[in-house]
């Protein structure tokens, strides 16, 4: 967007909930930010429609008490995020205002705080030299942010190539001090500080290319890593009715995933869930570095009682921050819970503007908006040859648990991993309730991923995963037969097939997110247990009647489960392993 030369002013002429109509005296741009002056405060709003000299703006705050005639100042730019060192460990509202810097217990209208400490000093090391040619996103220097090398980059807004005219020497500088001066072809000089601004609704394109993802992103959740893996730079979504464990699932991933940076966008969800993160993350250790989880995490909280318009902004704010860190060559994991709330925010506005509705009263362009957003994820090769990635996982809260609704359907078209939470599994407390048969990871079909998996885990790994899936599928068929024909109406073999799939279910799929040991299962351990479970499935067992099968397999499962609960390769673990061996010996044929 070209910045308007003079700042346009306007006056409020109509108010319908958080949609305000402003009579303007000059040019305004779509998505331009403006501030409505209301008894000493300025309420932030965004232009979403222009009709003649009327700008329709959505206000990011309660509009209580607004009156026609109140003055409006247009800012001349779109909704922007301030990007710079100090973002990590922060808790933001949907517009990237620092929640901790706000004073009261209650959120005051129009209290806008800086995204990070603008007075803070950082230890700066230059990475570029005088005379270097740079462009948007080039690394000029770095500071150490929570032990993560935070790159100070040439602003993303730059177009074309620039020459470094001067660069600061290593030393301590304030966030807003100039650390470099860049010269363009036309001789124009651009001073660069550690802070830059970026319009959050636009994708940062400061990279060379985006290959297909090819590297596993370990989450420590067996049913994901083993059966339907998510990859670095991949996209996934978790739809599920309420109570099926979406949030527990996402929290487990955010705690355990092998990422440098985790950004959680709590979008229109429960405040107490965000409080869980606030309370636990500063205490919990990052399993990858041993440092506190909070040090690598940023939380964007627009809880369900916070203003609706800011909810839509919150996911974009989160994505812009993710893109900023990706440009530093880092592995970023972005989680949004829940994208349905964001879609609902769009619906509320579309409704107030009296647009013709699409399915379920959602706006017609919902699928386009969703796919555009997911497409901002991905692994990229930066201009300096390094890689950076954004892995995006969103939850979807389908109305009535029905997956044939617009948000789920639009998301299914773009997200490559589908983790279907099943009410039936949740009801029988089989957590995580991800349905192994309905769910998929398209990445598992990528030859480039298959190759890295076989290398990283063990040769033939993908084959083993296929075998697990087969056992589950055959088990499901056997269960149906048993249900129809009765226990004694089917052969003992059918019971065996069923119970072998139960072993896979209980030991590989089910995982206790609240047990210290079982909550996170590293890849090596997953591999070990997969071998164990497959060995059980391949063991020939002899039974005289079906009645012996059920109690026998309950013992098998109990022993394997105790292994899951024990420290890997500890004496306890070995003891249950031996116990299992004994149980298997009992039924050796002959």
């Amino acid at each position, binding site marked *: 967007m070209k910045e308007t030369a003079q700042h346009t002013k306007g006056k409020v002429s*109509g108010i*319908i909930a958080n949609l305000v109509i402003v009579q303007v005296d000059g040019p305004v741009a779509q998505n331009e930010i403006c501030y409505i002056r209301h008894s000493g405060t300025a309420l932030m709003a965004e232009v979403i429609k222009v009709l003649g000299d009327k700008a329709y703006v959505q206000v990011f705050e309660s509009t209580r008490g607004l009156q026609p005639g109140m003055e409006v100042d247009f800012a001349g730019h779109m909704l922007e995020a301030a990007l710079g060192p100090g973002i990590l460990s922060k808790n933001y509202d949907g517009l990237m205002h620092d929640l901790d810097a706000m004073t009261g217990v209650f959120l*005051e209208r129009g209290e806008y705080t800086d995204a990070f400490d603008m007075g803070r000093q950082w230890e700066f090391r230059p990475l570029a030299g005088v005379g270097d040619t740079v462009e948007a996103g080039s690394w000029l220097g770095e500071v150490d942010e929570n032990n993560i090398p935070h790159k100070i980059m040439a602003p993303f807004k730059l177009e074309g190539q620039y020459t470094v005219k001067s660069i600061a020497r290593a030393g301590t500088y304030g966030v807003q001090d100039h650390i470099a001066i860049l010269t363009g072809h036309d001789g124009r000089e651009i001073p660069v500080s550690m802070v830059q601004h970026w319009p959050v609704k636009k994708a940062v394109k400061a990279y060379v290319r985006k290959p297909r993802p090819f590297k596993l992103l370990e989450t420590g959740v067996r049913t994901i890593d083993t059966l339907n893996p998510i990859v670095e730079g991949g996209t996934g979504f978790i739809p599920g009715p309420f109570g099926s464990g979406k949030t527990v699932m996402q929290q487990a991933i955010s705690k355990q995933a092998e990422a440098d940076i985790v950004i959680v966008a709590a979008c229109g969800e429960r405040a107490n869930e965000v*409080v869980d993160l606030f309370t636990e993350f500063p205490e919990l250790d990052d399993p990858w570095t041993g440092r506190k989880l909070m040090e690598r995490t940023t939380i964007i909280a627009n809880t369900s*009682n916070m203003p609706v318009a800011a909810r839509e902004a919150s996911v974009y704010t989160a994505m812009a921050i993710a893109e900023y860190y990706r440009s530093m060559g880092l592995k970023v994991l972005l989680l949004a819970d829940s994208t349905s*709330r964001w879609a*609902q925010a769009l619906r*509320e506005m579309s*409704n107030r503007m009296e647009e013709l509705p699409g399915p379920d009263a959602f706006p017609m362009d919902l699928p386009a908006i969703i796919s555009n957003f997911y497409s901002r994820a991905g692994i990229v090769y930066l201009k300096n040859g390094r890689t950076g990635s954004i892995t995006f996982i969103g939850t979807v809260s389908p109305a009535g*648990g029905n997956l044939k609704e617009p948000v789920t359907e639009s998301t299914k078209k773009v997200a490559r991993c589908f983790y279907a939470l099943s009410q039936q599994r949740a009801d029988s407390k089989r957590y995580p309730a991800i349905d192994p048969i309905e769910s998929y990871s398209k990445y598992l079909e990528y030859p480039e991923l298959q190759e890295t998996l076989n290398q990283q885990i063990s040769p033939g790994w993908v084959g083993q995963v296929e075998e697990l899936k087969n056992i589950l599928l055959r088990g499901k068929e056997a269960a149906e037969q048993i249900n129809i024909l009765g226990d004694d109406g089917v052969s003992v073999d059918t019971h065996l097939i069923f119970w072998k799939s139960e072993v896979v279910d209980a030991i590989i799929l089910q995982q206790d997110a609240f047990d210290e040991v079982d909550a996170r299962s590293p890849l090596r351990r997953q591999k070990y247990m997969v071998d164990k479970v497959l060995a059980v499935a391949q063991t020939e067992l002899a039974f005289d009647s079906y009645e012996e099968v059920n109690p026998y397999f309950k013992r098998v499962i109990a022993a394997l489960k105790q292994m899951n609960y024990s420290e890997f390769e500890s004496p306890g673990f070995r003891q249950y392993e031996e116990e299992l061996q004994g149980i298997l010996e009992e039924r050796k044929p002959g």
Partner: protein
Amino acid sequence: METRAFQRIYTRIEQITKATCTVRATGVGYEELAMVAGRAAQVVKIIEDQATLQVFAGTEGIPTNAEVVFMGKSPTLKVGDALAGRFFNAYGQPIDTGPEVEGEEREIGGPSVNPVRRKQPSELITTGIAGIDLNNTLVTGQKIPFFADPDQPFNQVMAMVALRAKADKIILGGIGLTNDDYLYFKNVFENAGALHRIISFVNTTEDPPVERLLVPDMALTAAEYFAVEKKEKVLALLTDMTLYADALSIVSNRMDQIPSKDSMPGSLYSDLAKLYEKAVQFEEGGSITIIAVTTLSGGDITHAIPDNTGYITEGQLFLRRDTEIGKVIVDPFRSLSRLKQLVIGKKTRADHPQVMNAAVRLYADAANARTKLENGFDLTDYDERALEFAREYSRELLAIDVNIDTEKMLEVAWMLFGRYFSQAEVGIKQELMDQYWPKE
């Protein structure tokens, strides 16, 4: 709400619908309160000099030359200690014989708590009902509804929970309560000698439906006063939130808004969340816990009202009549308290989480066995034992007339495990089995 000097008065109503009227006026603020021919109304839309007012009591009989007086403020409640023990209508006016309450005037529906100023809920609420305390433990600062069909005894259970919960204040928001239920609550609270810690805002079925929209905000404004200012543990009871949502849909319909699922307004989720999210645990010790009722039609939880509610609240409680034992139980399958993880095994005995899960799993096995039985299949010995376990479990623990402490509930569960199952069948962590498995 008497008129005072210098208030702006208008007499040109240009449009009247069943719930709204539009008047030409200047200097009107959004959400401002007004009196239209003596009836309370609120500004819901302003286009230039035309203000649309939602008339709470309905527009029957309002003429186009009616007097419209703007009050210069949004709806308020006077808060103070004198609220305790009193009964009010949807506008916060006394409906008992007592005097007007004097106190600080506060706008209802005020701002949200900054999420970083909340504390993680960690204080257990005990009710003595095992279906709640054992399987779906409640925590202060939680919000949870009963999902119930209209014929179920949800108001009775709610009153019982409220009285046993050791709250400093109980605030009843009666939304379209029948007169009988209103009197029931009044009697129960009176008989328990608890009236001094109860505050009621009541809209009965006799009152206009749109007035109901004010009740939850009134109740929660009072709750916030006691929780913030007095640092008290406040329990807010909202019954029935389905009628609140119905009132929302009436208004949005009158304003020609495009309905989304089940004729509900597209903003239903945000509207409900704004209320439920008032549930909070403050750092200073005060808390607001919300127990609500959402009535279902024929047990259908996919309807927009329970569906949106389920996504907002921290779990839900289902009541069900167990025909085997002839009693109402708290359904262990469909009920859920999301915050229980914060207290069980921490504020209660360490074996609590595993015992709870094992019992529900075995109860599920019994349900499968019952299906087998109904389909005419033979039962295994395990099935028989599971069925017997389920009957005992239902009678001794799930029934709502149980009133024992949590420790006792765990003991009963272990006793039943030992009576009907082997250790391998129960499948709890071995160290816990070693400690609690009943000795012969």
